[in-house]
C-alpha cells in the first residue's frame, strides 16, 4: 500500500492553468509594490521582473507560474513612461525565463530527492517488518514476466539466489505438484479480477521437505484495467497448521473420552456457571433430559439437577460442588443424593475441580459423577452378611464349648462312679447297687445329648428325614402324658383331647419328641405344685396343640432367643443343658409345614403351642 501511495504522489503534478493564475496574482503583487516604491522602481525595472520570478518559482510553486509572471510584468513594463523599450527588454525576458526554469528544476530535484529518501525509508521499514514477521515479499512484472523475491521468499521455497530464474515459472516449480493446478487457477482469477489472490498451498523443497504457504497479492492495473504488476506476501503457516491440527485432534480425543466415559461429566463455564457440556452418563445418573438439565442452565438453575445431602437436606444452588468450584475455585470430593424425576434417589460420588487459565483465574468447573448406589447397597449387604456370619460363628464356638462341657459332666460322673466301684471291688467291699443306676441314668443323659447333637446337625444341614404315617394325635399326646405322669406322679398334668378326629399324616416319633420336650420343659420350669394343662384343638386348616404352665413366664428377650440354636448357651453359667430342645422342636414342626410359638409374659406362666396343617403339604422324605 505504501508503495502505491508513493507512486501516486510521484505522478501528481500541478495543472498549468492554476499556475497562470498564480502568475497573474504575483504580477499584481509586484505592481502594487512598484507603485508604492515608484521613484526607485523607474530606475531599476529588472528588479520587478526578478522579484516576480523568484516569488513564483519558490512560493508560487511552478515553472509556468514564473513564466506567466515574467510575461505579465514585461507587458506592464512596456506601459511605463520612461522604460527602455526594444531588444534589451526581450533579452531580459529570455534571461528571466531561463532563470525561472533553472530555479524550477532545482526545486523539483530537491523534491524528488526528498521523496526518494522517504520511499527508501519506507521500503526499508517494510522489509524489516516483513523479516521480523517472517513474511516473504514478491513482485511480479506481468508484461516482462519479471519476478522479484526477497531472501525470505527463497527460504520459503528452499532455493538459493543462483537457482532462482526470476520468472513466474520459478514459483510454479516450487508449488507442490498436487497443488499447482489450484494455485495457477487462483492466479488466473486474480489477474482477471474475478477474485483476490488469497490462497494456501504446499511447497515442495528440492530436498523433499513439504511446507504450507499462505499467499496474498494485489494486482496493479492501468487506466484501461490491464494488469501490469502484482505485489504480494507469502507466509509459512506449516507450524500454525500443525498446531491447529494438534489442537483439533486433542479436542477430538477429549470429546470422545468425555462422551464415552462411564462416569458422568459436567462442565460449566465461569463466572455465571453456564453448563457447557454434560455427557450421556451424567444425564443417566440424573435421569433427566438434556434440554432440561443442560440448556441455558447457569448457577441459578442448578436446582434442575435436584441434588441433596445424604440425609436429604437440600443444597442451595450456590453451594453445589460445581458452583463452588466456579465461584471459589474449590475442589471437592463428596457423596450426594440425586433425585430422579421419578423420585428415585441415587447416591452419587461427585469429584469436582475448577479448570484454571494460565494466570490462575478460574475458566470453568468440571464435575465427575459416579453413581455408587448399587455399590453402597452391596457394601451394606456385605457388611450385614459379615456381621451375621461373625455372630453365627461366635455363637457356634460358644455352643461347642458348652456342648463339650455338657458332654464331659455325665462322663465325669460315670467315670467317678466306675472308679469308686472298682476300688470297692478291689478292697473286697460291697458297693451300693444304686451306683449302677446312677451310672445308667448318666449314660442315658449322655446318649440323649448325643442324639440331640446329631439331630441339630441334621437340621442344620437340612438332612433330617421324616417318616410320616397316619397318626392319631389324641392318642400320641395321651401316651406322652401317661409316661410323664409315671415319672412325675405328684405333678398335675391334664390333657383335653380334640373332640373331632385328630388323624394326621405325620412322623409320630418326631412329633412325640416335640410333645415330650415341651412337657419336660413345662415340668422343669414351673413350681412343683402348679398344674400343667395340655389341649388339642381342631381349627379350620390346622390342628393346634398347646401346653400351659404356671411358671415365671418369659421376657421378650428370652422369647426371641428361645427357638434359636446355640443361643441359650450364651444366656448364663447357671443353667445346664444345651438348650437345643426348642430349636429341634421348631425344626421338626417346620418340616411338617407347621408353626411353633409361645405366648408368655413375666409372672403369668407360658403357653407353648404348635399348629400342624391338616393337608399334608410336605414331601414324604422317608420310606
Amino acid at each position, binding site marked *: 500500500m505504501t508503495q502505491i501511495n508513493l507512486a501516486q504522489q510521484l505522478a501528481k503534478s500541478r495543472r498549468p492553468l492554476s499556475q497562470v493564475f498564480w502568475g497573474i496574482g504575483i504580477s499584481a503583487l509586484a505592481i502594487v509594490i512598484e507603485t508604492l516604491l515608484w521613484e526607485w522602481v523607474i530606475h531599476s525595472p529588472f528588479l520587478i521582473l526578478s522579484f516576480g520570478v523568484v516569488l513564483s518559482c519558490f512560493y508560487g510553486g511552478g515553472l509556468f507560474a514564473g513564466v506567466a509572471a515574467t510575461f505579465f510584468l514585461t507587458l506592464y513594463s512596456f506601459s511605463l513612461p520612461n522604460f527602455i523599450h526594444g531588444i534589451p527588454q526581450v533579452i531580459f525576458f529570455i534571461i528571466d525565463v531561463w532563470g525561472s526554469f533553472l530555479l524550477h528544476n532545482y526545486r523539483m530535484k530537491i523534491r524528488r530527492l526528498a521523496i526518494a529518501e522517504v520511499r527508501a525509508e519506507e521500503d526499508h521499514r517494510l522489509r524489516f517488518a516483513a523479516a521480523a514477521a517472517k513474511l516473504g515479499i514478491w513482485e511480479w512484472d506481468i508484461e516482462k514476466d519479471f519476478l522479484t523475491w526477497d531472501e525470505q521468499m527463497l527460504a520459503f521455497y528452499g532455493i538459493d539466489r543462483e537457482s532462482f530464474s526470476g520468472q513466474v515459472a520459478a514459483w510454479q516449480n516450487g508449488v507442490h505438484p498436487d497443488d499447482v493446478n489450484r494455485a495457477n487457477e487462483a492466479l488466473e482469477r486474480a489477474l482477471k479480477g474475478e477474485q483476490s489472490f488469497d490462497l494456501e498451498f504446499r511447497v515442495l523443497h528440492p530436498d523433499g521437505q513439504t511446507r504450507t504457504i499462505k499467499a496474498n497479492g494485489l494486482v496493479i492495473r492501468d487506466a484501461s484495467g490491464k494488469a501490469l504488476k502484482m505485489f504480494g506476501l507469502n507466509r509459512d503457516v506449516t507450524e500454525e497448521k500443525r498446531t491447529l491440527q494438534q489442537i483439533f485432534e486433542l479436542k477430538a480425543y477429549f470429546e470422545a473420552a468425555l462422551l464415552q466415559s462411564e462416569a458422568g461429566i459436567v462442565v460449566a463455564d465461569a463466572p455465571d456457571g453456564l453448563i457447557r457440556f454434560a455427557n450421556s452418563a451424567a444425564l443417566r445418573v440424573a435421569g433427566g433430559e438434556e434440554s432440561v438439565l443442560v440448556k441455558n442452565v447457569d448457577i441459578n438453575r442448578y436446582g434442575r439437577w435436584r441434588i441433596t445431602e445424604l440425609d436429604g437436606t437440600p443444597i442451595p444452588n450456590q453451594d453445589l460442588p460445581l458452583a463452588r468450584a466456579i465461584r471459589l475455585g474449590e475442589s471437592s470430593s463428596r457423596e450426594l443424593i440425586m433425585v430422579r424425576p421419578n423420585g428415585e434417589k441415587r447416591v452419587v460420588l461427585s469429584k469436582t475441580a475448577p479448570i484454571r487459565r494460565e494466570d490462575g483465574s478460574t475458566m470453568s468447573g468440571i464435575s465427575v459423577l459416579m453413581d455408587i448406589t448399587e455399590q453402597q447397597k452391596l457394601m451394606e449387604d456385605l457388611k450385614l452378611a459379615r456381621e451375621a456370619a461373625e455372630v453365627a460363628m461366635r455363637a457356634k464356638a460358644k455352643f461347642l464349648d458348652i456342648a*463339650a*462341657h455338657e458332654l*464331659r459332666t455325665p462322663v465325669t460322673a460315670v467315670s467317678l462312679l466306675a472308679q469308686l466301684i472298682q476300688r470297692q471291688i478291689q478292697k473286697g467291699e460291697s458297693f451300693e447297687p444304686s*451306683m449302677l443306676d446312677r451310672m445308667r441314668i448318666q449314660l442315658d443323659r449322655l446318649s440323649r445329648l448325643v442324639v440331640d447333637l446329631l439331630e441339630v446337625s441334621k437340621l442344620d444341614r437340612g438332612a433330617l428325614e421324616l417318616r410320616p404315617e397316619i397318626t392319631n394325635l389324641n392318642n400320641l399326646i395321651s401316651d406322652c402324658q401317661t409316661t410323664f405322669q409315671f415319672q412325675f406322679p405328684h405333678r398335675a398334668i391334664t390333657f383335653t383331647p380334640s373332640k373331632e378326629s385328630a388323624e394326621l399324616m405325620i412322623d409320630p416319633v418326631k412329633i412325640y419328641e416335640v410333645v415330650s420336650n415341651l412337657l419336660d420343659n413345662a415340668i422343669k420350669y414351673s413350681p412343683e405344685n402348679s398344674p400343667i394343662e395340655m389341649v388339642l384343638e381342631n381349627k379350620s386348616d390346622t390342628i393346634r396343640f398347646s401346653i400351659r404352665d404356671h411358671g415365671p413366664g418369659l421376657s421378650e428377650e428370652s422369647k426371641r432367643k428361645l427357638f434359636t440354636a446355640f443361643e441359650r448357651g450364651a444366656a*448364663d*453359667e*447357671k443353667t*445346664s443343658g444345651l438348650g437345643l430342645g426348642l430349636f429341634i422342636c421348631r425344626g421338626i414342626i417346620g418340616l411338617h409345614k407347621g408353626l411353633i410359638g409361645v405366648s408368655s409374659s413375666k409372672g403369668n406362666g407360658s403357653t407353648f403351642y404348635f399348629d400342624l396343617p391338616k393337608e399334608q403339604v410336605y414331601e414324604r422324605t422317608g420310606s
Partner: protein
Amino acid sequence: MNPKTSAPKRILLIEDEPDILFSLKMFLESEGFEVSAAQNGEEGMRILKTQEMPQLILLDMKMPVMSGWDFCSEFINTFDHKAPLVVMTAAADAAERAKEAQATGWLGKPFTLDELVTKINQYLKN
C-alpha cells in the same frame, strides 16, 4: 499322706451334679477326709461363714444359684485367711479360667481319682 494319724483334714466340696457330688464325697471320706458338701456356691458360702475354714475347697464352676465364678470372687473378697481353692471344670480352657477366677489350682473334668488325690496332697502340703 496319712490323715488318720492326725486330726482329720476338712474339705469343702461344692458341686451341683448329684452323682459327682455323691461319688467324690464317698471317695474322700473313704480316704479319711472330713467332707462338707454343698450343691451350689451360695450353700458353700453359707458353710464357710458358719463353720471353720476348711483345709481345701473343691469347686465346680458351672452351677445354678451361685456359680463358681461368683463364689470365687466373693470368697476372695470375704475371707482374709484362705484355704487353697481348686476348681473342677469341664471347660476347654480350664487353666485360663482357673487363673481368671484366681483359684489356687484346677482339675479338668473328667479326672481320675488318683489325679484328685495327687492334687489334694499337693495343696495340703503347701
